[in-house]
């Protein structure tokens, strides 16, 4: 399995990368960790004329914790994100999600921004971005713009990133509530595969055990990962008893539009959505109570 011939440019700065994108147009494909792109190129499903490598741009690799935001450079390796204890204390869902992403060897090379830009509707990091409302910083030659996750994913493997733009960094909201818990769970054929269905939740409780803030979403059940802010809002003010958790998870499953494939029917995915959705909310609740 060999890709078509292509030319190669290693960008040394984001500015240089944007210049190449501007100059070369549609023939260019950006490569970050390449853990999804290289197989697609090997199968010749992707045939770039020019591969623009952003792996050596040091300015795209950082984790910076601010008061209410964790800023992460788009080309930061997944393994580094996973290992960062200070980040895990503030955005725990990221580490929880990364435990399901590929394997040690792919996380050593795969990047945070690469997974988001690839936008697989079954992938864990896009779902995490949706649930937490991460903001994408897109850089073009004309400057940067910030796109919230809810507007970023436009379809399967599609985002609103323009052909001359590059994802530069990702801003993850830090919840300030002291009693915050989160959870990520999924079912896949083998551990490390893309999810058949995935669910993620993050909850905050007041001193009395009442839910004061909630976020919840599902992956693998539609064209993009889904967040359910209105359903999550129904959890706020409750004590997260089983009836409300079940009703939210079941309503989310009903709102999903899962497809069928060789591995799972639409009906089975919808069933999983209800089961895993409730499981994620319950686990996040347990974490918040600790």
């Amino acid at each position: 399995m060999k890709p078509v011939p292509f030319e190669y440019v290693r960008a040394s700065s984001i500015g240089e990368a944007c210049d190449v994108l501007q100059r070369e147009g549609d023939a260019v494909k950006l490569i970050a960790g390449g853990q999804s792109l290289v197989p697609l190129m090997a199968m010749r499903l992707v045939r770039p004329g020019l591969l623009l490598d952003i792996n050596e741009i040091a300015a795209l690799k950082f984790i910076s914790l601010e008061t209410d935001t964790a800023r992460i450079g788009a080309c930061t390796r997944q393994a580094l994100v996973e290992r960062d204890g200070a980040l895990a204390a503030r955005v725990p869902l990221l580490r929880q999600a990364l435990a399901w992403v590929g394997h040690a060897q792919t996380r050593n090379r795969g990047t945070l921004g690469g997974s988001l830009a690839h936008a697989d509707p079954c992938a864990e990091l896009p779902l995490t971005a949706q649930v937490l409302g991460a903001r994408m910083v897109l850089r073009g030659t004309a400057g940067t713009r910030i796109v919230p996750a809810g507007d970023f994913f436009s379809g399967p493997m599609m985002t609103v990133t323009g052909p001359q733009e590059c994802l530069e960094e990702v801003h993850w909201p830090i919840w300030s509530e002291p009693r915050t818990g989160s959870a990520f769970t999924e079912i896949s054929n083998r551990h490390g595969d893309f999810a058949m269905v995935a669910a993620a939740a993050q909850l905050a409780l007041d001193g009395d055990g009442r839910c004061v803030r909630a976020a919840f979403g599902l992956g693998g059940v539609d064209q993009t990962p889904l967040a359910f802010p209105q359903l999550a809002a129904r959890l706020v003010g409750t004590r997260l008893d089983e009836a409300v958790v079940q009703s939210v998870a079941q309503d989310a499953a009903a709102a999903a539009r899962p497809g069928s494939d060789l591995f799972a029917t639409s009906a089975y995915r919808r069933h999983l959505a209800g089961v895993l959705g409730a499981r994620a909310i319950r686990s996040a609740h347990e974490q918040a109570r600790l």
Partner: protein
Amino acid sequence: MTEKLYSISIEVNGVHRTAQVPARRPLADWLREDLHLTGTHLGCEHGVCGACSVMLDEEPVRSCLMYAVQADGHRVTTVEGLARPDGSMSVLQDSFCQAHALQCGYCTPGMLIAAQGLLDAHPRPTDRQIREAIGGNLCRCTGYQQIVEAVRLAADRMAEESK
């Protein structure tokens, strides 16, 4: 058609190597076919089986999922680089023999690289960590149990040796 060639300079198992390669040459193919380091095995060639794992700057990665040109300026260690300087087997390699952790041997180079990466980061891993570390490597012979035992044995022996 002649493909454009790119100059690369990569340290492989401590030896400085330079070459001219087309951009589409996978790192795995460059190691095997140009350097004749055939210890690195190619199973699936699209990032599923883990047989082609090598260390890139001391971290295990899949060598079928990057191009040789991308490794320019970096260090690569293949399974050939795990042996002792005199060519005898490392503690980890010997432990694979002792614990019968291989049968056909096709997955072994990738298993060794994955396990070495684990032991470098966690000299006394739990069984859970061992299973997670080799979770991206397929083996169709052993049932994995002896591989887990071999990594545990290697960790015990290395801890004993460093006393």
